[in-house]
């Protein structure tokens, strides 16, 4: 059983490493980003029915071992979509904060503008009670995920029978410096909010970014459910990525950047 699990994990990891090594050759591009002051957002539409152009990365937060992430195309609720399965593994379930994974859109370049996507997410089967189904979008991603801004949803919080959990349905984070834990400890209620979420259906999210401000809209709402006025990386630019938190089975479809 355990062996089978390891094998299952190893193959996607290998695939990731391959992608990473290819990406390493593109390093001059990241130099370009810094030298070029007039970077503009590049419009892009991806149905996410193929893995082409995605770089899958695991991002260590506080956990001892890196999570493993399986990335593939699968059918979900009537469409072909990107599935990311973030598995934190068995040894670190007691850790307060876990690993994240990104599927970075390699050709994306985003500074200010609007990012939209359909997403869905559930706690991984067998995960601890504190898993919520963490799904979101990272933006202004630098250096293969070493730094980024992200909005994410805690999918099973939206209709929890506990208002405090509901009030943590949406979250802003900036990795690696401003984890949700740090933001909540230092400024509770400032980088998180309530929004209604149905864990097992496609949820439309829209992120509007301008300078050091960002707003999150969910399911076509005219008003943002979460606003951030001090993006922690400042007025920067970088790639866009699909985001999952630990122990989450997440689906992504119809990404647009403009």
């Amino acid at each position: 059983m355990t062996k089978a699990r390891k094998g299952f994990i190893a193959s996607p990891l290998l695939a990731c490493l391959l992608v990473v090594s290819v990406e390493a050759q593109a390093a001059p591009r990241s130099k370009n980003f810094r030298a070029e002051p007039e970077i503009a957002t590049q419009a892009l539409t991806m149905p996410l029915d193929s893995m082409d152009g995605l770089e899958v990365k695991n991002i260590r937060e506080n956990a001892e071992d890196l999570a493993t992430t399986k990335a593939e195309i699968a059918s979900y609720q009537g469409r072909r979509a990107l599935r990311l399965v973030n598995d934190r593994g068995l040894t670190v379930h007691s850790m307060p904060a876990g690993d994240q994974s990104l599927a970075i859109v390699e050709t994306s370049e985003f500074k200010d503008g609007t990012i939209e996507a359909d997403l869905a997410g559930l706690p991984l089967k067998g995960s601890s009670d504190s898993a919520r189904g963490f799904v979101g979008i990272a933006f202004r991603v630098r250096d293969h995920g070493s730094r980024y801004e992200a909005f994410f949803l805690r999918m099973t919080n939206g209709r929890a029978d506990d208002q405090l959990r509901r009030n943590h349905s949406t979250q802003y984070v900036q990795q690696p410096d401003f984890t949700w834990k740090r933001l909540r400890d230092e400024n509770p209620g400032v980088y998180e909010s309530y929004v209604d979420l149905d864990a097992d259906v496609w949820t439309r999210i829209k992120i509007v970014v301008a300078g050091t401000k960002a707003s999150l809209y969910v399911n076509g709402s005219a008003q943002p459910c979460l606003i951030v006025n001090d993006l922690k990386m400042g007025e920067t630019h970088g790639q866009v990525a699909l985001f999952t938190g630990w122990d989450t089975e997440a689906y992504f479809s119809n990404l647009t950047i403009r």
Partner: protein
Amino acid sequence: MNQMKRHMLLAVTVQACFLVSGAVKAFAANDFRSDNKANVQASTLRLDSMDGLDVQGVSEPGAEPVKMQADVVSYRGRRALRIVNIEGQGVQNGEQVLAIVKTSDFKDGTIEAEVAGVPREGAKPSTRGFVGIAFRIQGRGSKYETLYLRMTNGRADNQLQRNHSAQYESEPDFSWRRLREENPGVYESYVDLEAGAWTRIKIVVAGTTAQLYVNGAAQPCLIVNDLKLGDAHGPVALWAGSDTEAYFSNLTIK
């Protein structure tokens, strides 16, 4: 000049309220407490008249008596109950005004109403336009549960303020301040609100739980699982917080 006129107007309306409330006092206090198996009495009030309303100022401990004005006026296309709550100076906790529906007796069920609110003219900057519904009122306003909205918070440019758009409290023991200090984020939440616009609210109460729904949402924006008065019953009231100009229309209780 204007100031004087205003004061006179206030004095008259407040006196009128005392007259009304005096007459109802004994009846209300006896009736609602002695009946342990009260049923919800279904009723609909358009609130285009003051009939059947008992307007009460409720001061939090240490606060001066609340000044208020209650009348029926035209607001955004309809005749509606207006309550203006004028907070005294140097008051810490703020004060509340109830317009108690005298014939109501509510235990479990659904309360719906349309409300609107803005900070009153000349209010302190910290005022939000506090408007809501109180229920299971005991002793003519000495104790009650309430769910209310902070109308200017819904679209504030500050997420913490937005996250305080909806609030539960139980007077006099569990003020918003006590609840927030002891359990931040448990009795308050975000919901989109437009200050001054008619806003539909629905409150569903069962036993010691209550849910608040805003503007026809299918899901509640605020849930309370431990109503502080327990499994009580009592009248329903329109509720306005400090320094607020509040409007109420189309109240239904079922």
